[in-house]
């Protein structure tokens, strides 16, 4: 065992020396692997970011929630068709809620998009004003970063209170606490009583630009009939979601008085609808990432194999000398394999550093527009990248190393460069 160790230490040392002796050549050769590893790492990072965004979407929307809406949230439906659907009215919403049997609870909300709100000295545009109910605030998934949600009493009395999203807070108040401050919606003052934590994701970045006010107060500003109501229904458990969906479909069709053969003039939205979107994005990342990665590794393998062949020829005499003083074929094989592998691992480490830097820069630059991106490379991606590069090194070095091992020692000793 010790005997093996001392040999390996020497093999390692001689590999380092020979790579150092041809530093420029070694560097150039490992660029392919470097780029390959960078692609692998960035791809892994993008996929992990996507997964994290998906997780957050799932937990924000709730895996046990269904949302009846005029609009299909997945973006798949025909826009014009949905546009022409009749609004879901408050009366219909109430009727739907009354008829549902399997839902644990329901609440209604209505949205006004593209609104502008102001404080004494600042304004924020592109804001979503959502009128909703106190029950929304009582959902486990509705956590507040600061302050509180409005109460049933405040809801019923159409109190001029508001809970704002994280993005709204940063736009209007910077780092100051907004609780107790007043914002104006269409000129009407609302007192901020709570702030939501960051909720937006890849699929729902508007959530952070939303201001929640009591539904009756919303009607007070925008009128009772101008907006279509969204009915949110919570299943008693995620397993009952299918049952709830069936019941909901029947109830909404009945309330909307649809003839049996007519298509639904509403959508039942849920977190799941984003799963397909996630899958589509995944495929794109995979296709692009795998393609580029394979290409760079191919270039890397060819380059390293080539350079190792050159190295074997250059060092024919050395191989002969080593064989003459007692090196086995397997020792020579190992020496050249290790050299190729070290080329790859060195390239991989640089690749990891480069992609780590890219991640830092991208997340810094795109903090607002793409904040679902993870701020650092996931460590297991780094491990995978290095493992892959070791495999690439063995692959690229094997044939040259075999040639080195199989050299006839007599011929090798006679070789003159």
């Amino acid at each position: 065992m010790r005997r093996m160790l001392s040999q390996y230490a020497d093999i390692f040392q001689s590999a380092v020396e020979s790579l150092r002796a041809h530093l420029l050549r070694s560097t150039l050769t490992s660029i392919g692997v470097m780029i390959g590893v960078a692609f692998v790492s960035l791809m892994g990072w993008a996929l992990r970011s996507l997964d994290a965004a998906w997780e957050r979407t799932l937990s924000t929307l709730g895996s046990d929630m269904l949302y009846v809406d005029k609009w299909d949230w997945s973006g798949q439906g025909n826009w014009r068709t949905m546009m022409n659907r009749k609004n879901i009215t408050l009366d219909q919403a109430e009727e739907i809620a009354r008829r549902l049997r399997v839902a644990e609870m329901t609440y209604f909300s209505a949205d006004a998009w593209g609104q502008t709100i102001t404080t004494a000295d600042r304004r924020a545009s592109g804001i979503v004003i959502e009128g909703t109910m106190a029950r929304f605030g009582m959902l486990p998934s509705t956590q507040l970063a600061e302050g509180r949600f409005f109460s049933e009493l405040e809801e019923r009395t159409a109190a001029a209170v508001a809970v704002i999203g994280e993005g709204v807070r940063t736009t209007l108040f910077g780092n100051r606490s907004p609780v107790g401050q007043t914002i104006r919606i269409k000129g009407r003052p609302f007192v901020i009583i709570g702030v939501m934590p960051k909720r937006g994701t890849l699929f729902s970045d508007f959530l952070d630009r939303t201001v929640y006010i009591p539904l009756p107060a919303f009607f007070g500003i925008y009128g009772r009939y101008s907006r279509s109501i969204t009915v949110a229904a919570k299943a008693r458990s995620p397993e009952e979601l299918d049952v709830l969906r069936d019941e909901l479909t029947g109830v909404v069709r009945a309330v909307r008085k649809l003839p049996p053969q007519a298509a639904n003039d509403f959508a039942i939205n849920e977190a799941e609808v984003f799963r397909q979107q996630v899958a589509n994005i995944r495929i794109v990342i995979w296709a692009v990432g795998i393609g580029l990665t394979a290409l760079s590794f191919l270039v890397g393998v060819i380059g390293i194999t080539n350079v190792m062949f050159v190295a074997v020829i250059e060092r024919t005499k050395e191989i002969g000398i080593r064989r003459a003083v007692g090196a086995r074929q397997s020792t020579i094989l190992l020496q050249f394999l290790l050299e190729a592998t070290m080329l790859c691992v060195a390239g991989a480490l640089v690749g990891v550093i480069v992609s780590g830097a890219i991640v830092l820069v991208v997340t810094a630059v795109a903090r607002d527009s793409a904040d679902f991106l993870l701020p650092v490379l996931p460590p297991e991606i780094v491990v995978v990248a290095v493992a892959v590069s070791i495999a690439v090194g063995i692959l690229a070095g094997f044939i040259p190393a075999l040639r080195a091992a199989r050299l006839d020692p007599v011929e090798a000793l006679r070789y003159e460069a």
Partner: protein
Amino acid sequence: MSTPPLIVLEGITKHYRMGSEIVEALRGVDLTIRRGEYVAIMGPSGSGKSTLMNIIGCLDTPTSGRYMLEGTDVSSLGDAALAAIRNRKIGFVFQTFNLLPRATALKNVELPLIYAGAPPQERRQRAIAALESVGLGDRLRHKPPELSGGQRQRVAIARALVTGPSIILADEPTGNLDSKTGMEIMALFHRIWQEGNTIVLVTHEEDIARHAHRIIRIRDGRVESDMPNPTPIVGAPLLV
């Protein structure tokens, strides 16, 4: 019961295929070398001296014939066993020194010990001792390009000696040296022989061969004559 001879060659042949032609480098060599002998192998260029040497050193295998080294039939051994024999029982000295050019004298001499699996500490001590014994105790950190021809050959001799081999095989060890340096090297071989080592020396110079106690002449791949040298000359004392 006497110990077997160090080297017994029986009917050794070696053929090389050169395209459609077959070159018969050795055509049936029978030879016995005993422990403690000092043998010179002579012969014209192309007569098969180096080929014979490489076979004795287990660097090459014969096409046919039997080779017993210390009573073991070497012909049947695999790569790992042959490597171990080269490592422990054989010490090569070449005409062109064959040192690793980028490694220090010390590292060059350590190399066989690395393959022998000696621990680093011991490796270093033994390599230093070997270099000191050839008068290079003050050149440990020098690399071959920084050494003279004679010094390089002495590093090579230290490397050959360092594992305490049964036999030193030297193929034209003075071929690349001027005659004065050559004589120094021969004096060194004489001392090594005196210390109990077996030496087989290939040369085509009579002056060099006369240092040995037995002279074997090869011609066209066969032993032409094999005679003791009753009056070996003793090389000039080593000038360090």
